[in-house]
């Protein structure tokens, strides 16, 4: 499944988020089809979370540019009241740390009820019934009893299930999942990913899965966009990207993951240097760390298509 000809659910064009001089997101464009899961990967500070927060309109005190159409509605131009009506209803977000995404002093069931009654014109009794159904759907045993517990009485995995239930409450068309399993143990991560995959298939919503874990991306997503210092440097179907990484950064990133079952005694290949200060770099931002860098890299490369639906922004890629 790639971004086929059907109208995209979400179409982002030239999204820019600048905090003063630092452009955290520097004019990125991508789209998400209905039912598609797009992986957004990159290291800390590359702008993946900022992109999600900008789409949710949760960033203040920043210069925001570009457009983001969700089902034809331009999100970035909406006034706060109109955005508030969309948030949770059409576009929802799951955060990394379930411990801080839930209100510590409100029972978890009531937090889901609040999400429901904010958008749907239903009675409290009906909302309560639906919240219990949602808890059951995300795999919480004895949901009637768990409705009344506080977040601190639940494990991290359970809290993340509640956060997912809240995000799914109004059946949004687009789900932004920002490192949804990073704070969890691998055994719990496997449970949560399986749950997410099942729900997404069932509901047919579009998903942007933000993660730094390329293993998670490999198993979950249809397409991947790789970000570096605020820009998308490569974008392709998941299998294509892993089989034929074209950008030197993607290539380095894939090589630098230690393999579970091979090459144990060889040094792990590294990408020299660090990303620090890259957003202020003129030209290609990866150039200072790139083995292929040359004179031409002083001019910023644009994202161009060089294979079917395979986009890369690098001068030195054939």
């Amino acid at each position, binding site marked *: 499944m790639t971004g086929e000809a059907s109208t995209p659910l979400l179409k982002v064009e030239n999204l820019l988020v600048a905090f003063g001089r630092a452009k955290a997101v520097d004019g990125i464009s991508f789209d998400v089809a209905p039912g598609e899961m797009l992986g957004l990967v990159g290291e800390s500070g590359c702008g993946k979370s900022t992109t999600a927060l900008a789409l949710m309109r949760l960033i203040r005190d920043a210069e925001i540019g570009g457009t983001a159409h969700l089902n034809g509605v331009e999100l970035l131009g909406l006034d706060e009241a109109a955005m508030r009506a969309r948030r949770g209803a059409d576009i929802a977000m799951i955060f990394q740390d379930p411990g801080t995404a839930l209100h510590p002093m409100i029972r978890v069931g009531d937090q889901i009820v609040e999400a429901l009654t904010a958008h749907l014109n239903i009675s409290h009794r009906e909302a309560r019934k639906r919240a219990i159904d949602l808890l059951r759907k995300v795999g919480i045993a004895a949901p009637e009893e768990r409705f009344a517990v506080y977040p601190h009485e639940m494990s991290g995995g359970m809290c993340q299930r509640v956060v997912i239930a809240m995000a799914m409450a109004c059946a949004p068309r687009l789900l932004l999942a920002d490192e949804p399993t990073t704070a969890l143990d691998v055994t719990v991560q496997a449970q949560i990913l399986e749950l997410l995959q099942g729900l997404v298939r069932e509901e047919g919503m579009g998903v942007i899965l933000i993660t730094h874990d390329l293993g998670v991306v490999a*198993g979950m997503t249809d397409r991947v966009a790789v970000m570096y210092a605020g820009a998308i440097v490569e974008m392709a179907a998941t299998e294509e990207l892993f089989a034929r990484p074209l950008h030197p950064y993607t290539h380095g990133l894939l090589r630098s993951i230690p393999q579970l079952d091979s090459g144990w005694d060889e040094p792990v290949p590294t990408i020299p240097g*660090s990303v620090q200060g890259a957003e202020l770099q003129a030209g290609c931002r990866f150039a200072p760390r790139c083995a292929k860098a040359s004179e031409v890299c002083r001019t910023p490369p644009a994202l161009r298509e060089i294979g079917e639906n395979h986009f890369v922004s690098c001068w030195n890629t054939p």
Partner: protein
Amino acid sequence: MTQMLIEAKGLARHYRISRHRILHALDGVDLGVARGATLGLVGESGSGKSTLGRTLVGLQKPSLGQVLFEGKDTAAPEPSFMARLRRERQIIFQDPSGALNPRMTIGATVVEHLRVQGWSRADAQSQAAAAIEQAGLATTFLSRYPHEISGGQRQRAVIARAISTDPAFIVADEPVSALDVSIRAQIMNLLHQLQRERGLTMLFISHDLSVVAHMCSDVAVMHLGRIVERAPRAALFKTPRHPYTGALLSAIPIPDPARERQRMRIILKGEVPNPANKPSGCSFHTRCPRATELCRSVDPPLRPIGTEHQIACHHPLE
């Protein structure tokens, strides 16, 4: 029998969390690390990995049991042995930002570390310079503050401090977990190189089994305060015998879409048990696909199955 540099014997650590409840962070651990070896310690959060590491370097006192260094009990050492223990046992923490004083330069931090061990100022300064270079940083970094350098460089500074006293044994507690993929490989290679050049003995704590595969010759798996499996790396990864190890390995996402999508994954059902309220019998029985009545009542001891392979399980995998 090889000489163990450091050894835990019947090690237990209890925390009283209320009048009637005791949390058994360590519940009878027997574990030795031979001189020059790197033992990996894996397990979910709350399994007692960090408590074991901290107890082995003497940052915490055991409630029961002994820590032996070169065969000698470390509980009430002679002053000269105490001084040696402080020098010979060092620890590297997960979060390098939290492990460095933000108001001290890197140089001052390392020098202070040596001064409290009785080094003269001049000797401490030259030793700090040597250590920082061995950790792969230029000596100009000695005059920098933690906030002025990147996360990877901060972790190098923490490593420089640990190796500055020329220790025999280092506990590395999730030393690369807070770092980005491309930086993680750099730090792994540095630790590998130091280990080889100095003949260091290391306990490498990590929740990431791929990292452990690359760093360690032996691996021990912890579950709720006990060691449930220990084996040389190849045996543990290729033929795990404890069902918990099998589940951990199967839960790790592999960064290869073709393989990841075809894998049979064991997804554990249920919740990680609360360490303050451990299940009876084998602490893994609540989630174990092979559990029987025996597992619910009798806690299996750690027993040898082959020359270097140990497990604590009634119904091991074939």
